[in-house]
């Protein structure tokens, strides 16, 4: 007996010493902490605690509670059901609306530890289970499918009897996203979700809470796949259509504002081409002079004596200056021809007026190098200037600029607005008296021309080769009428560039003095448009220059430009140069064209903006060339000066 007791004591002491030697120390247990009580359905509840340090010794825990206003201490009836360190109160032990005072005691061999008391009322610690039977279905009745989420309250919570009232909340997210979209759902058990992304998977979760309590855990994730659908929203298409129409209208207005009405009218309603018969003189027909008419039909150079059928090619405006005509031109200085017709390269004798007029036919040579003035005809001498009040005044104004620079013969002012120049292979230039005339817009507009008004402007040379006086602006002047009239063998290629206002005049002309009709040299007449849109400065280029254009100008031509009519016809009269170099008037309002020995006149019809354009060459018109056409300055573009 004694030995047993002693053995036990020794053993215990050994144990203690061993443990002491091992470095451990025994102590009373630490206090249990964080007592949490929760009730899932307001009928039972469970409390959990956190054990403190056990002090190295086996520690037991006990939960004691007191009910409200009672000193009776009860111990936890069930330590097992809810797991470790827990206490479960079943229905019989649970009283609602009663305050529980709960304490947890930790006990080990060395002592006890009491936790802080916790007072709870079951009503306020309700935390239900998550909702159950969460189902998500895709409703596809309309074009826009939506999700319908439905669930059931947790089984334990008795909402049917009204004992617990639950409110719900659900959240949804796309499969590959991180952020949930939370929707409170109130007390309902069904919820619809719209605005889904087609062909994607969604995750849905639901949770609930009693009216005074804690939120439950989120239910398990329910996956739902939304099928692919194409939304046919009518209003969206209507909106798109309206927007597109608005943009189109805006652009149309912008475009229209850039286009001038004049051009637009021509663009939409091209003028009807009038008949053009070369050499046919309608005015003469009216006058009843048959011999004139028929003589006009006889074209001296028809069939073409020259082999240059390229003349008829619309490409260029060519002015023929045959040898004999040149001589004649030189000799008969008093011969004056007006009527220059230069056409656009794309125009020919037979092309309608519209094609002549269309600014789109202007050829853009793209180079600043080419400055060519069109001089197509002879120009009237200034001596024969007949003063006419408005035009004369205009001319005076035009002439004023260049007075000091030029010899009186030279002061010519050509004023024209951008226009088309339609070249004709041949034309007769008719000398016109000085007073500028309003350029006629179109070649064969009989209506435009008032033959009565013409005579005042024209003084025919006594040689009266100007049977065309009454209609100097006839496009198809037949130079055969004036066999003595010099004709330019040179071909002038007039190419007017739109917007750049290049007027290329290629003139091939025979050298002076040696008149082989086959010999031609190209002369370039540069038309410089100083500015303002109405002035053309004609600056002839010396012969031999190509169309590629060099800037050297050895000869300068003065040409007289007479305006044909109000509608912006500008007639440039080609003048025979006296060989002098005349200063080019570079004033903005003036355009001077200097006639070379060949004496070219170009008629350029200004636009309607400046009805009065006139250039009078100071040199006598030596040529009787008549322009079979004239430059239609319906759209005349300024030529850069150089």
């Amino acid at each position, binding site marked *: 007996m004694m030995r047993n007791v002693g053995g036990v004591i020794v053993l215990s002491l050994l144990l203690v010493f061993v443990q002491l030697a091992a470095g451990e120390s025994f102590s009373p247990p630490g206090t249990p902490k964080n007592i949490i009580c929760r009730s899932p359905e307001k009928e039972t509840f469970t409390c959990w605690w956190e054990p403190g340090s056990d002090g190295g010794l086996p520690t037991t825990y006990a939960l004691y509670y007191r009910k409200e*206003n009672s000193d009776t201490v009860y111990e936890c009836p069930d330590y097992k059901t809810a797991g470790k360190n827990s206490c479960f109160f079943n229905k019989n032990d649970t009283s609602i609306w009663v305050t529980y005072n709960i304490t947890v005691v930790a006990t080990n061999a060395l002592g006890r530890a009491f936790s802080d008391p916790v007072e709870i009322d079951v009503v306020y610690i309700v935390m239900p289970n998550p909702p159950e039977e969460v189902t998500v279905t895709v409703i596809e009745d309309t074009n826009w499918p939506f999700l319908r989420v439905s669930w059931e309250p947790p089984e334990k919570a008795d909402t049917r009897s009204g*004992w617990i009232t639950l409110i719900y909340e659900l959240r949804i997210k796309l499969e590959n996203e991180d952020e949930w979209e939370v929707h409170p759902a109130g007390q309902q058990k069904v919820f619809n979700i719209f605005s889904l992304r087609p062909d994607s998977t969604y995750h849905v979760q639901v949770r609930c809470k009693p009216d005074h309590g804690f939120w439950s855990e989120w239910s398990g994730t329910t996956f739902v796949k939304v099928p692919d659908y194409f939304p046919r929203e009518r209003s969206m298409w209507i909106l798109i259509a309206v927007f597109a129409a608005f943009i189109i209208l805006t652009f149309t207005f912008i475009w229209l504002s850039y286009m001038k009405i004049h051009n637009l009218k021509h663009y939409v309603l091209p003028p009807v081409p009038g008949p053009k018969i070369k050499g046919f003189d309608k005015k003469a027909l009216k006058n009843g002079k048959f011999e004139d008419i028929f003589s006009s039909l006889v074209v001296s150079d028809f069939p073409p004596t020259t082999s240059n059928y390229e003349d008829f090619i619309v490409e260029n405006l060519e002015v023929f200056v045959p040898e004999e005509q040149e001589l004649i031109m030189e000799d008969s200085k008093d011969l004056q021809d007006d009527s220059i017709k230069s056409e656009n390269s794309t125009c020919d004798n037979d092309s309608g007026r519209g094609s002549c007029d269309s600014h789109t036919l202007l050829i853009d040579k793209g180079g600043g190098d080419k400055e060519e003035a069109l001089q197509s005809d002879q120009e009237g001498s200034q001596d024969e200037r007949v003063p006419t009040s408005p035009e004369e005044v205009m001319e005076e104004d035009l002439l004023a600029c260049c007075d000091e620079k030029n010899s009186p013969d030279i002061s010519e002012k050509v004023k024209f607005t951008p226009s088309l120049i339609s070249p004709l292979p041949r034309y007769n230039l008719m000398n016109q008296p000085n007073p500028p005339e309003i350029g006629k817009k179109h070649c064969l507009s009989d209506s435009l021309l008032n033959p009565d008004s013409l005579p005042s402007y024209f003084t025919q040379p006594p040689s009266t080769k100007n049977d065309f006086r009454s209609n100097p602006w006839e496009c198809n002047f037949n130079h055969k009428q004036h066999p003595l009239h010099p004709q330019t063998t040179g071909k002038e290629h007039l190419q007017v560039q739109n917007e750049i206002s290049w007027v290329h005049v290629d003139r091939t002309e025979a050298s002076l003095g040696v008149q082989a009709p086959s010999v031609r040299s190209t002369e370039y007449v540069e038309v410089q448009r100083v500015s303002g849109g109405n002035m053309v400065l004609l600056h002839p280029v010396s012969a031999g220059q190509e169309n590629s254009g060099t800037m050297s100008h050895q000869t300068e031509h003065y040409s007289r430009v007479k305006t044909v009519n109000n509608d912006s016809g500008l007639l440039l009269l080609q003048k025979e140069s006296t060989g002098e170099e005349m200063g080019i008037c570079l004033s903005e309002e003036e355009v001077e064209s200097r006639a070379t020995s060949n004496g070219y006149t170009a008629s350029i019809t200004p636009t309607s903006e400046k009805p009065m354009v006139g250039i009078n060459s100071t040199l006598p018109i030596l040529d009787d060339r008549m322009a079979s056409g004239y430059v239609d300055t319906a759209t005349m573009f300024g030529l850069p000066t150089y």
Partner: protein
Amino acid sequence: MAPIYNTSRHLKALYISPLFVALVCLAFCSRLSRMKAASICTNSQTGCHFLSLANLFDRVIHHSARMHGISNDLHSEFELYFLPSKNRVSRNCHTSTILTPNGKENAQRIAREELTEVILKLLLAWRDPLWHFHQNMARHHKFNNLSSNKSLEMSEMVHELRKGVQKVAEKMQMLGIISNSLGTLGSREALLASDSPEWRLMNDYNLLYCFRRDSNKIQNYLKILKCRIVPEHGC
């Protein structure tokens, strides 16, 4: 001319505005009278809006929920600013004498009449204490304006809710759902409870604590009653 014009306009405004006010008042008064007519609706009167029992129940339940919310707010505020000592005084609510079911089974087992009676007793027992509580708060400026308004609202709500539950009881009696033995019993016990001086001994914190619990009881009992009698609407 301009000043004269302005004054004439002002005069016109002066004349018109009272008329306008009078019109508005007429409109309001008519509405109010109509509402009053609807609220003071006895069984025999005609022209009353017929409210179904379920509708009545919903109204009183909402009312009680609001009352409980206010009491909860006041209690939390009191606990925040007037920290009671850790050694809490045992709570002796004056209504502890009223036997109330303290569990679901008990509440479902009890008869409808008894349940209704319990509700009415509770409501009656709190009428005076809350009124005095509000007076106390207002006199001693213990609460801020917001809380003082809440205490006043709380005391009024008890009054209104009691009347509402009485209406529900009357309707139930009329419909034959409950017997007619309700009226006398409730008043007697309630008078006893309200006469007891116990509630004067309660300090403010206890009073708020007790009332918070009792308002929760009332709300819960009403819900149980509704789901037992008219279960088809939201139970």
